């Protein structure tokens, strides 16, 4: 993969993260404290599971 392609992929990733972050900040303004805590809990649990899946990635043959 060329450096230019790598740059484009990384830029896409960074842009997606930034856009999601802005959307989250906008959504958070409209949510109650209980909703924020509840949504955060669901996100943290998903993050735990996704991190396990990420660790397994590429180790299937081992």
């Amino acid at each position, binding site marked *: 993969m060329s450096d230019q392609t790598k740059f484009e*992929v990384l830029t896409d*990733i960074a*842009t997606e993260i930034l856009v999601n972050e802005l959307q989250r900040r906008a959504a*958070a303004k409209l949510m109650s*404290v209980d909703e924020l805590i509840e949504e955060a809990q669901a996100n*943290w649990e998903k*993050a735990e599971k996704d991190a396990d*899946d990420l660790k397994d*990635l590429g180790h299937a043959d081992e």
Partner: protein
Amino acid sequence: MKKFISLILVYSICLLLMACPKETAVRKAAKASFELSGLTVDAIAATAKAYNENLIGLETKDKIADALKLVATGGKNFNQALKKFRDQSGDNLTPDQISFLNVIFSSEVITPFLGILQTLKVLSMNGAKNLLAAINALKVVILLISNGFASAGIPQMNFREVEVNV
């Protein structure tokens, strides 16, 4: 021109300081937990994509995965403590409760995040120069979120130190 830029900077800082003046500490902490949890989910997806596109190797991917798992577990603990304290104290957390949240946040969330920043630093030093812009964008997001927690008065973290390490 310099005066104009200074004026803009001062105005921006004032806006930041005045933003949401009525928000309670518990709301700021809940908002920061929500935002950081979302970012963590995004960071995991981004790392998987970077690995699948051969931008990072297996070892780097595994290091980031380990750190993100720690962040996720620490963040879950932080959020559960926050929920418990809110149930007990409503919108007015006690100094002891804030202190407890400080400890969890600093040791279980920020520390593994710093590990990721260190990995990214190594990656940027070894990688091609034109990858730096995208990597730096990721660092900026992480620092923004971290500072969001700081402005909530939750962690007693020296973010200047973090920036130096990045």
